[in-house]
């Protein structure tokens, strides 16, 4: 697989479709990542991977406004790259399967599960994480609202909740408590801070839409 091919695929898909990226011949390796823990795969005789698969891929993107360029294992998730290579540990790993939302970040302004986004998909795109949300010491209205409504306990899902909450408002999905509940149901909070989260998003929406 070459970089050019990767770029073509991303261009075709707006950079966000995992399925289409897999067309590039990486399905085998990616499956072994996604399927880790499933017993049948663990026991199957996996053929040796094509050498090309191990080639690092040059990826350049903007992270919280700063340009960055990395040579990445094409299997790397955006989440692992943020956490392990860029030191941005605000996005959290809660499931690694797109089930919990703790890793929610913005890619070109849209909320995505960073664990389900291959890092190579964000080539040439804008990535914003919780660390890039405040303007210096001035908190984003959503961050302030989470404090005001005590919309957190352990704080582990909180960065993802806040990034999802900001997107929820921008999408126009914060029109009522019921709508917020529906559009925030991809972000699990095991401490059960949901009532506070809904109140915080309602509050922040008023400020954001000023």
């Amino acid at each position, binding site marked *: 697989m070459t970089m050019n091919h990767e770029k073509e695929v991303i261009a075709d898909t707006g950079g966000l479709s995992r399925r289409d990226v897999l067309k590039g011949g990486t399905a085998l390796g990616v499956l072994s*990542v996604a399927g880790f823990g499933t017993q049948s*795969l*663990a026991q199957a005789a*996996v053929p040796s991977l094509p050498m090309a698969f191990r080639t690092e891929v040059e990826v350049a993107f903007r992270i919280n406004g700063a340009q960055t360029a990395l040579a990445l294992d094409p299997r790397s998730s955006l989440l692992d790259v943020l956490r392990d290579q860029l*030191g941005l540990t605000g996005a959290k790993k*809660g499931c690694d399967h797109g089930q919990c939302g703790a890793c929610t970040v913005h890619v070109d302004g849209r909320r995505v599960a960073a664990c389900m986004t291959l890092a190579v998909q964000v080539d040439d795109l804008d990535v914003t994480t919780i660390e890039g949300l405040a303007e210096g010491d001035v908190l984003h209205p959503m961050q302030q609202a989470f404090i005001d409504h*005590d919309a957190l306990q352990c704080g582990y899902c909180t960065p993802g909740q806040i990034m999802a909450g900001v997107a929820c408002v921008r999408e126009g999905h914060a029109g009522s408590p019921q709508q917020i509940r529906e559009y925030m149901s*991809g972000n699990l909070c095991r401490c059960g801070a949901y*009532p506070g989260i809904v109140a915080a998003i309602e509050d922040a929406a008023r400020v954001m839409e000023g």
Partner: protein
Amino acid sequence: MSRNFYPELVRVDALDKVRGATKFGTDNRPDNLVHGAFAVATIGKGRVISIDTAAAEALPGVVSVITHRNTTSLKPAQFLMGGGFAFQTHSPLLTDHVAYRGQPIALVLAETLEVAIDATAVLQVSYEEQPFAATIDNPLAEPIAQAEAPMRYPLEDISVGDAPAAYEGGAVKVDSTFTMERQFQNPMELIGTVAAWEGDRLTIHEGTQNAGGCKFGVADQLGINPDNVTVISPFIGGGFGQKNSMQSQLVLAAFASRELGRPVKIVVPRRQLFHDATSRPATRQRVRLAANRDGRLVGALYDVDAQTSKLDFFPAEHADTAARFYGYPAFKSFTRLIRTDIPTPGYMRAPFEHATAFAIESAMDELAYKLDMDPIELRLRNDTAVDVVSGLPHSSRHVAECLRRGAETFGWSRRDPTPRSMFAPNGDLIGMGVAIGLYSGSGGPTRARITARRDGAVSLNVGVHEMGQGVLTAITNVVSKRLGIPASAITATVGVTSGVPQPLTAGSWGSASAVPATEAACDALMKALAEAGVDISASLPLGEMVARTGAGQMQVEASSVAPGQELQVLGRTDTGRVAPAGPVYPGFVAFSYAAHFVEVHVEGSTGRIRVPRVVSMFDCGRVLSPRTARSQAIGGVVWGIGGTLREGAETDARYGGVMNGDIAEYLIPVNADIGSIEPGFIDEPDFQVNRSGVKGLGEVVMAGVAPAIINAVYHATGIRVRDLPLRLEALLKPQA
């Protein structure tokens, strides 16, 4: 409520948490890090015959593959409730024994996580399989009477009066059996370790409720001096009991790091947490209640089957809770442990009290209908000031007040008790249910250190863990009020073993242990200032008082123990052991209480259940931090909703393992599942249980939610559900 003793303080760690700045255990990434990933057993039980690691080791980036052949220098872990530090006795990868499906059998270490995960898939493993029992109904499951089980801390059955005779003679009876599937804690933060050595000194970053236990436990397994181990767990991304002891990966991360001479990080994937960590055990409970026609209970019989593993006897304390609900003149329990081939079960929020309340309080609702009596009135008639088991008085018991205030807030008087009698505008059936819950008021030995500087800044170091419950905010609030200093001047540090010892934080004894110790430290500080010649009655600012001693700062340490405990018991927590006391103390018994009022809406044709409204009243003693207590209470009710309507592990009886072993298939509540939750607090201190008046909150908030929902569903539909989780088909089956 508006008249709290302590002021509303903003959660002290909220600012960092909303900025993503709080560092959790596996957020740490020392240089030269090696990543670990487990391969897990694909058989239900047996042993590993061989593991061919050649293909894995040949993958570029693989550093090492560790199997049981490499770990002979390690000592096996010991069960927390068997005198050790770990969630079970069995240590994966230390022998060829496979005790259950999904148990780790090899650890791959690689330069990147991607390579490590990939390499686990190319290990060639052969096994010798053995028959096994993964469920309590399996013929190979082994029941044993708990009273006869060889447990380190034996549990007797309870017998008060002649309960069988009293039951037989009762005028109105209920005889019902309740079942509950295994449930999993699923804190959002995965279990994981970052281990690094510097010479012979080991540093562990791990989200754990028991940094002290991890320190002494890993030292024991490695055969090193515990003084050389530092465990760092200042913030935990939720524990809920699953992180209350040493987990499988800890010693292996430390061992691998020592072998490789490089830091090692292992994050245990979610699916593996369903297979190699604790769960709330499956239970089967039979409740027999008998009452006079006036509603007074005359006798109760309570039988429990609780799942355990074949590795350890996990103590089932359901009866100790059941016996405290009411003033039964006669009560008898019989508990069996059902040994199965799963990881040893453990403590999940309200570990026994959730299941017990479900059974007892569902049966009470059945009794109320048989008596044609309001369920609140039935509960009030059977309230008691005396513990029937010990004969001792309850130190405080505001059950009646919780019921009365809750009923008023909820609007209970609007309820028509006839099933299927109330409807929402959209045609949904409306049901309203009530239930109480209770939890032991426990406490234990704890140390606290306070440092006051002449610039007015105060540092606290206390033996407790912050897992989201808000203990940092609570102790800050207490110290602020006690020393008359602003909360912003206080910095509290917990969960790090390089300071004061860090005992297990669980069982709702965290604040009830840490706050008395913190108050004692405040007193010790004032005493030390007085002894240094400072006039402490002169209302000087604290910093000024410190300055007048001539020193730059003043540091004191203090400790506290639970009523009836000797000071020597501090030696136990100083060495990582568990040493709580309660609920039975010399001269009294202490419990926290809850009364939950639930409204459900049931869609008639599909049986879909919504919970638009819950009102809950709590008697937890003194409320230390109104804001975080409120959040904790709301969270507990959310747990109750999940534990009733959503959560159940589907164990595969044929092959072992949990079939719905992730958080898309094992359902925990999402935002759309939750409506209005309105908690209230009695806020009456209980100064018998400790000097701070705290009985504990984190568990009782969940206890009793399940039966309140189930009773509401009965009211809505006329269908009595006795198996959890409540699935829609239970409401769609033709009723006998």
